[in-house]
């Protein structure tokens, strides 16, 4: 596609449920990043993929968070047993390898845990 696509755009879930957030990067972009923005905070790095590998997952807040990428394309961020503090906008970005800052961000998924 022309841009980075994220789905769903909004998700309301009950505390304790699992959620999956999807990211479709720009075709040909080998680097993929997940960030999240909590209320009143800046964007917080979660994980970096190069191809299907995740050489840096240092930003994942707990073992309830996991992510995978398949076919060097689509990525899924999974949050298990959601908590209220997981409420945030989750943003995905992709770039060509080596373009350290030339990312294109998606519009994000707004997750609300009630």
């Amino acid at each position, binding site marked *: 596609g022309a841009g980075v696509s994220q789905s769903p755009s909004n998700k309301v879930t009950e505390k304790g449920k699992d959620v999956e957030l999807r990211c479709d990067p720009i075709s040909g972009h080998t680097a993929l990043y997940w960030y999240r923005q909590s209320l009143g905070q800046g964007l917080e790095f979660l994980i970096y993929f190069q191809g299907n590998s995740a050489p840096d997952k240092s930003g994942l807040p707990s073992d309830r968070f996991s992510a995978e990428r398949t076919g060097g394309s689509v990525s899924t961020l999974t949050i298990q047993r959601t908590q209220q503090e997981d409420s945030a906008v989750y943003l995905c970005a992709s770039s060509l390898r080596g373009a350290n800052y030339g990312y294109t961000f998606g*519009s994000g998924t707004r997750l609300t845990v009630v």
Partner: protein
Amino acid sequence: DQQVKQNSPSLSVQEGRISILNCDYTNSMFDYFLWYKKYPAEGPTFLISISSIKDKNEDGRFTVFLNKSAKHLSLHIVPSQPGDSAVYFCAALPGGTSYGKLTFGQGTILTVHP
């Protein structure tokens, strides 16, 4: 530990005047700095950047200044236009990295009044 700080949550400016957005950082390993602009319900978009070997970079109405000794950067928008109303994030990248793990500030909401 907030390594990149934008201490002004909001800024209001009259159309045609200058907007100055400020950003401070604490990590001396940062050597590349970026500004992103974000409209509601959209992902951030890259605006302008500066390397630590420079103290100024200009692109049309946008100029970024870097004061390494003070660990401070600023974004100047001249003249400001109503369409510039958005959230502005500064971000920093450490030297020697092969991928774009950015550290973001909290953002400043800019409102430009007609």
